[in-house]
């Protein structure tokens, strides 16, 4: 039985590969899933448990424990996440290396957003900037702009990355699991620590592959910093991105199609249109538009826009637009804001499914399918629901709005939807959007052909009738059968460079505090001054505690000695004097007697 180890950032990534994992397990492969962090924001941990229970060949477990600095970093970017393993804080040499790794990778990610293709992506750049300590952004904000310096910095960073040692815990984990193939996803998170799995796999001679989970992964997040042996992508557009933006050799790339959308080709509505409209609270006698909410990065404050959109429809003066129903479907990870939406203020409008519905609950996917299937068109800012709508051939619309510019023109993946060959009709104003609705709601045969071409190109590049899941599973199986690559232990120069690299790691750990530069400049002299003053105090203290009593005791001893000896001498002198006197008196009497006798 072959062993496949699939390392995911968190169980939320299961949804992209669930069917493929089932297929691999059913084919006799033992599939081990390891999650770097646990997360239950949308019931992801439950998904993992459900998956593990579905087959004896599927196992789910936490990935090896990492040091706290990494956990801090991950939590900074996702406050709902907690890292697997012990949370006790230990400052160690290893933590310094981890800090250096995170720093180096974040800087690389930061620099990529200075490239010309990202000139409109200031928000994406800002997202990395928030994670980097200020000292780096101050320097890189200037040095990162010219392409020449960017290249030099990037080359230096690659050198530093090479000397960062692999994590012992991950090495041991891979040795114990001994997989025939290591799959990693998403790998391209900002400052990702998953790079260490690729590095360990290279060191131990284990074949590795990156599974690109979603359509925006290669353009809106970080870089593939250390290349795995293979990269599995959805389509040629992603293959192009992997080559041009990440430097992946074309022969390492396998195009499988978007397995995550396979269900949309096979699904059928779970109820009649009338039942559906009654369930969601819309008039079954009228067509309705589905407004699909976007993620928090794209549309953090979407409710006021949706209200303006609905108002524009209702006051359009075009009956088929003003009377159309409106079903608003909040993005599952950005749904709370819709509590503020007052659907009662608009006729024939509803928010559904209700905010807070568990996306893992029974019927959630079917409800989504029905929403798109029965809709007359789908509207959204920039969301993958627009791809799903294209599979069902529904007209798709968007409105370019300044408040969402960062999530539309500011991202490269939006161009796949709204650029040349895209399926989304993009309006520059609500008035133009109303005109688009008016024309498209009448039916547009040319639009259907455009949709099919988009889906063939973007979702099922091997043919509309060829599901991507078996192709993905076959690609994984083929990679597994390849001979393992030669182990690549650290070279001599890497081990040598690691000695001075330790101070670099220590500096990265210190700089990770994100203090102003002057703090680091002043820290050593201030420390020296404080230690000097403290030494003075300590000496005084020691003198008071030990020196003075000794001197005092010595003085007392000396005084006592002097006193006693002087007393003794005085006494002796006194006695000697008396004796002398007596002797003198005796001598005088003797003399007198002697003289008197004469």
């Amino acid at each position, binding site marked *: 039985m072959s062993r496949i180890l699939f390392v995911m950032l968190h169980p939320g990534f299961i949804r992209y590969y669930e069917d493929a994992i089932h297929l691999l397990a059913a084919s006799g492969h033992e599939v081990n899933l390891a999650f770097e962090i646990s997360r239950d924001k949308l019931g992801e941990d439950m998904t993992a448990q459900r998956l593990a229970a579905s087959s004896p060949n599927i196992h789910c477990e936490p990935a090896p424990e990492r040091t706290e600095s990494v956990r801090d970093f991950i939590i900074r970017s996702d406050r709902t996440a907690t890292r697997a393993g012990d949370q006790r804080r230990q400052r160690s040499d290893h933590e310094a290396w981890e800090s250096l790794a995170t720093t180096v990778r974040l800087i690389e990610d930061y620099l990529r957003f200075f490239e010309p293709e990202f000139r409109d992506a200031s928000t994406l750049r800002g997202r990395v900037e928030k994670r980097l300590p200020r000292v780096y952004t101050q320097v890189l904000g200037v040095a990162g702009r010219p392409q020449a310096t960017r290249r030099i910095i990037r080359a230096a960073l690659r050198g530093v990355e090479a000397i960062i040692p692999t994590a012992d815990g991950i090495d041991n984990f891979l040795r114990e699991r001994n997989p025939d193939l290591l799959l990693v996803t998403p790998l391209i998170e900002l400052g990702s620590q998953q790079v260490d799995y690729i590095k360990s796999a290279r060191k131990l001679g284990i074949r590795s592959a990156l599974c690109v989970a979603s359509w925006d992964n290669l353009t809106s997040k970080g870089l593939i910093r250390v290349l795995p042996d293979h990269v599995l992508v959805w389509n040629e557009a992603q293959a192009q991105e992997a080559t041009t933006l990440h430097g992946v050799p074309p022969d390492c790339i396998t195009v499988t199609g978007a397995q995550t959308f396979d269900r949309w080709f096979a699904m059928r509505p779970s109820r009649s249109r009338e039942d559906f409209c009654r369930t969601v609270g819309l008039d079954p006698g009228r067509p309705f538009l589905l407004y699909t909410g976007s993620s928090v990065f794209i549309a*953090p*404050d979407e409710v*006021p826009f949706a209200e303006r959109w609905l*108002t*524009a429809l209702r006051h359009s003066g075009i009956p088929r637009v003003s009377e159309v129903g409106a079903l608003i479907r909040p993005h599952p990870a950005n749904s*709370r*804001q819709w509590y*503020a939406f007052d659907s009662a203020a608009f006729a024939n409008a509803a928010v559904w499914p209700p905010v807070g519905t568990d996306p893992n609950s029974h019927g959630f996917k079917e409800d989504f399918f029905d929403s798109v299937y029965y809709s007359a068109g789908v509207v959204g800012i920039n969301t993958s629901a627009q791809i799903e709508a294209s599979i069902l051939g529904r007209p798709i619309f968007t409105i370019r709005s300044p408040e969402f510019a960062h999530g539309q023109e500011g991202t490269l993946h939006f161009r796949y939807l709204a650029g040349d060959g895209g399926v989304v009709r993009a309006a520059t104003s609500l008035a133009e959007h109303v005109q688009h609705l008016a024309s498209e709601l009448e039916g547009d045969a040319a639009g259907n052909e455009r949709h099919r071409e988009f889906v063939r190109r973007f979702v099922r590049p091997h043919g509309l009738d060829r599901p991507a899941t078996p192709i993905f599973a076959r690609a994984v199986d083929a990679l597994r059968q390849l001979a393992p690559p030669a182990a690549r232990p650290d070279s001599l120069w890497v081990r040598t460079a690691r000695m001075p690299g330790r101070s670099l790691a220590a500096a990265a750990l210190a700089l990770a505090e994100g203090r102003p530069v002057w703090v680091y400049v002043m820290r050593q002299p201030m420390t020296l001054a404080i230690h000097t003053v403290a030494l003075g105090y300590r000496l005084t203290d020691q003198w008071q505690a030990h020196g003075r009593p000794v001197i005092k005791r010595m003085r007392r001893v000396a005084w006592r000695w002097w006193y006693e000896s002087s007393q003794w001498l005085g006494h002796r002198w006194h006695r000697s004097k008396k004796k002398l006197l007596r002797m003198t008196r005796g001598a005088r009497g003797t003399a007198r007697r002697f003289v008197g006798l004469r």
Partner: protein
Amino acid sequence: MLRAPSTVSLSPDFIEQTRRQLTAHGITDGKPLVTFESRTRPDIARAVLEFLVREGYAVARIGDPDDGFYSYDGVTDLTRLAPRPPSLELFLVSASAFIVCESIDLQQLAYLTNIPSLMINARDPFVAYPVRANGLMTLSTAVDLDTAQAITITDMLTQPYFRDLHKQQVRGRRRGSHGYRDNTTEELIDAITEMRAGIAAGWTTESESQSRFRTRVVEAGAALAAVSAHVAEWGPDDGFIGDGRLVRFQADRVS
């Protein structure tokens, strides 16, 4: 000092030049002027503008050009006027019978020119509290995004509310714990009616609920100033928060 109306005099040349510009856009001296600035829903804005026009006002709309262009009789939309001299707003406000606004800058411009102001859809009672007696404000309906319940105006004077507001507005966090619903058309028309009545009657009487609300704001400001720099900056000074008021229909709800 804040209580006393300030005197601002515009130079005759400036007045003449701006007047000519406004006349070119259809704003004449014939009717009393209302300056309107709001990002509220277009249907609500339209209904309010129509009400103002029906009541005999000429309306000049200013603000963000991305909020859409309004073309009604009696309403002059200056949002897309280019070039728009920076002094235009000053002249408009000073020439208005009263203003309806959402931005604090415009409310303060009204103080400067001693023009009655109605601030709508306010989220922060301390910042929006009108300083002068001729000022009115309405508060947005804040919705607790954990419970999906609208919170009371009294809740909008508590530390948890301000902590969340501060995170969203000052620290720029994308997600807060509160969402907001704009004032409805009926609420805004009520507020404008109260504003007109106040201008006509001279703002002399004040209801018990209004005094109670002011006391609440002052008490909350005193309590929160120690823990919130934002409240310390915008809250009451020596017990003075302002002589203006919250619109009647909201003040009456404060227990």
